[in-house]
């Protein structure tokens, strides 16, 4: 079936199977592989996107549920050729090891700062609690979020 939605500000359509996840549609139908496919059960957060401004695991959202809605992926965070401040902070602090979890953390951190400009460490911890880093690079990730909040 054909689904129409807005992805990163652009109206797009995709032919999807009824049971297909938004994650699959983004990666395999729309050429947006930034959202990563890891656990596929909402445990790791590597597929995090914003759906109408709310942070969701795109592996747990059916593509058809996104019909008519607004989706922002990690590819859509940069504006006018400039990285989002969270992306810049991740690069500046070296908050990346293997990098697989990074897009999800970046989207989650951007969402946090959108709603809370000066989060405490506990608030950062809570906001990122749905994202797993198997390299256990959390210290640098926290440092990046603190830096982004200050910038």
């Amino acid at each position, binding site marked *: 079936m054909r689904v129409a939605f807005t992805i990163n500000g652009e109206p797009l359509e995709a032919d999807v199977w009824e049971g297909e996840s938004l994650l699959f549609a983004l*990666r*395999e*139908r*729309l*050429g947006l*592989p*930034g959202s*990563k*496919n890891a656990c596929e059960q909402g445990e790791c957060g590597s597929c995090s996107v914003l759906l109408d401004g709310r942070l969701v695991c795109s592996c747990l959202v059916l593509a058809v549920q996104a019909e008519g809605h607004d989706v922002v992926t990690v590819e859509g965070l940069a504006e006018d050729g400039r990285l989002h401040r969270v992306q810049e902070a991740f690069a500046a602090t070296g908050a990346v090891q293997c*990098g*697989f979890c990074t897009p999800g953390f970046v989207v989650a951190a951007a969402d946090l700062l959108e709603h809370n400009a000066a989060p405490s460490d506990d608030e950062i911890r809570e906001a990122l609690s749905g994202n797993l880093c198997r390299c256990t690079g959390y210290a640098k990730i926290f440092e990046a979020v603190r830096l982004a909040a200050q910038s």
Partner: protein
Amino acid sequence: MTRDFDSLAFTPGAAGPQIVVNGQALIERLREVERPFAEREGSPLIAGGYRPLPAAALLANLTGQPDRVFQYSGKVTLLVCNCGCEGCWDFVAEIEQRDDEVVWRGFEQIHRPLSDPDGAWRYDELGELVFRRSDYDAAVRRLAARS
């Protein structure tokens, strides 16, 4: 003496154009070639774990204008990691452009390099792929027209 050339085509796909050599998707061919190496490592599912390059990047690589960031000893990327990140798990090759033919050789997985005597994944089965220049250019033009 006439020689048999290999055939090259690019089939459209949302993730990027599939490279098809002699009627078989290169990713599928690599799944066969890499399987013994991947099984040896205890991870058979990583055999053929590739994704097409975005069309613009592939075109640049095929026409001798590769992205400088992702060059490996004169080789260019043909396929990327199935996570979608360039530079993560690239499959690369040397591309020689001659007047009448184009040759792909020196196939290599960047994290299982040929320079590693114990851990290299080898692609001897692929040999050299030799494409007739006119056919190669036509395939690349069709790819460019669709991109």
